[in-house]
């Protein structure tokens, strides 16, 4: 019997992306540059997060014609974003045949209380998280891949580091928590008990965990990998820089050889200007998008 959309098929694609870089692109030409540079997948968008931030207003799913043009341009997987809780946008992306849906805080949330019931879909979902409880809630809803949120569109890696360290510390703590305490931990975290037990026993998330939000240099990518990310998403960092093709390629090499400081030094050379970053305190807490979703 042939079965599609099983959890193993969904999480399996994320396993295949490990050690790779997923790049935000807005045109078929950018998608080809990303593929040529060695991206494992692209995220098809109308605007990169830095431009979404600058433009303000309501950010929505991209026009299907933008996504389809990018799907036709490359052979690697194509992901696309929907608003948190907007299951109809997700139905549309599934109908288009995108390979992964990102239920993303970068777009304006459509539901203040509920995320999408991702079990209803054949296409797999990736969701953002700033801590272990949030990651496990999303997995409980059917997410097949997690990415730490960071702070998208800032070119500042500090929030990505905070979120990765937080999740890893919470996982480490769980592995030494006595079994009888796990129920109250699950209650405090607001996470499904069976998933809390799974993490306590296995010492990792049950799905792949990438890092996202603020990665702008090869060193940033390698930093996140050394902190335990399975791979990285780079949003504005590539196509908001001076030489996107060279930077994309350098970030791919740095993600593969994240532990090799000689290679990191080599690939960091002569990449031109990185995107202009933003200090988090200048943005103001009420404007941080990492707190969208719950």
């Amino acid at each position, binding site marked *: 019997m042939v079965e599609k*959309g099983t959890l193993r098929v969904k999480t399996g694609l994320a396993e*295949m992306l*490990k050690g790779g870089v997923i790049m935000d692109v807005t045109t078929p030409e950018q998608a080809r540059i990303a593929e040529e540079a060695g*991206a494992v997948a692209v995220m098809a968008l109308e605007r990169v997060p830095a431009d979404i931030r600058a433009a303000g207003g309501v950010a929505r799913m991209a026009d299907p014609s933008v996504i389809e043009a990018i799907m036709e341009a490359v052979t690697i*997987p194509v992901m696309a974003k929907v608003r948190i809780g907007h299951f109809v946008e997700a139905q549309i992306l599934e109908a288009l045949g995108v*390979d992964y849906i990102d239920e993303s805080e970068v777009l304006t949330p459509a539901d203040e209380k509920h995320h999408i019931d991702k079990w209803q879909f054949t296409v797999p979902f990736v969701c953002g998280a700033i801590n272990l409880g949030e990651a496990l809630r999303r997995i409980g809803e059917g997410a097949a891949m997690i990415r730490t949120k960071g702070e998208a569109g800032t070119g500042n890696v500090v929030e990505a580091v905070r979120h990765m360290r937080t999740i890893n510390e919470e996982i480490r703590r769980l592995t030494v928590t006595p079994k009888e305490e796990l129920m109250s931990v699950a209650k405090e975290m607001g996470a499904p008990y069976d998933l809390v037990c799974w993490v306590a026993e296995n010492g990792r998330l049950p799905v792949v965990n990438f890092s996202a939000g603020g990665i702008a240099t090869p060193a940033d990518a390698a930093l996140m990998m050394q902190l335990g990310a399975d791979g990285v998403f780079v949003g504005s960092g590539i196509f908001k820089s001076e030489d996107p093709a060279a930077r994309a390629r350098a970030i*791919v090499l740095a993600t593969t050889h994240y532990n090799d400081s000689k290679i990191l030094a080599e690939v960091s050379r002569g990449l031109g200007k990185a995107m202009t970053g933003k200090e988090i305190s200048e943005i103001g807490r009420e404007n941080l998008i990492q707190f969208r979703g719950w």
Partner: protein
Amino acid sequence: MKKPTLGVLALQGAVREHLQMVERCGARGIPVKYPPELHLCQGLIIPGGESTTMGRLMTTYGFLEEIRSLVAEGMPIYGTCAGMIMMARRLVEGDQPLLGVMDITVRRNAYGRQVDSFETDLVVREIEEAEKPFRAVFIRAPWIESVGPGVKVLAEFDGRAVLAVQGHMLVSAFHPELTGDDRIHRYFLRLVEERVAG
């Protein structure tokens, strides 16, 4: 007999799952990040991942020539999914760096996009307990379009070859490393042991 060492090419993709499988089969598994490490291995696995990414990284770091010459000397090699694409001599479409060591023609993304990815039971010949079905996970998978005279097909799905062997070279379109079933890894380990025994 000393445990054989199997390398898993660790540039990108599902490396950990293969290493776990190798250890489960009683061999030693090491991740291979640099070409000189290939010489520590009695066999090599090219894992699933993105073949375009892997091909570029292999070109950049000089893996293509090194692996080709070791395989020509008889080192057993097993490629899953993207690894199978890398090992193919020809692709139906597209132009990307390949190892090109095995006499097969492969079609990338042959079953469609991720929403068409699937799992199914396969009949696999020549593995242990071959009468028991093998649960096979196909993810944006390629298939084998045609094979040369020296290639033996060990499993088909829907009339297409999805597992094949040519001497010391093995390829699968699906991912045995994602299931608990280690019979195909054991089959590969036998190829390695035969080679070690000379």
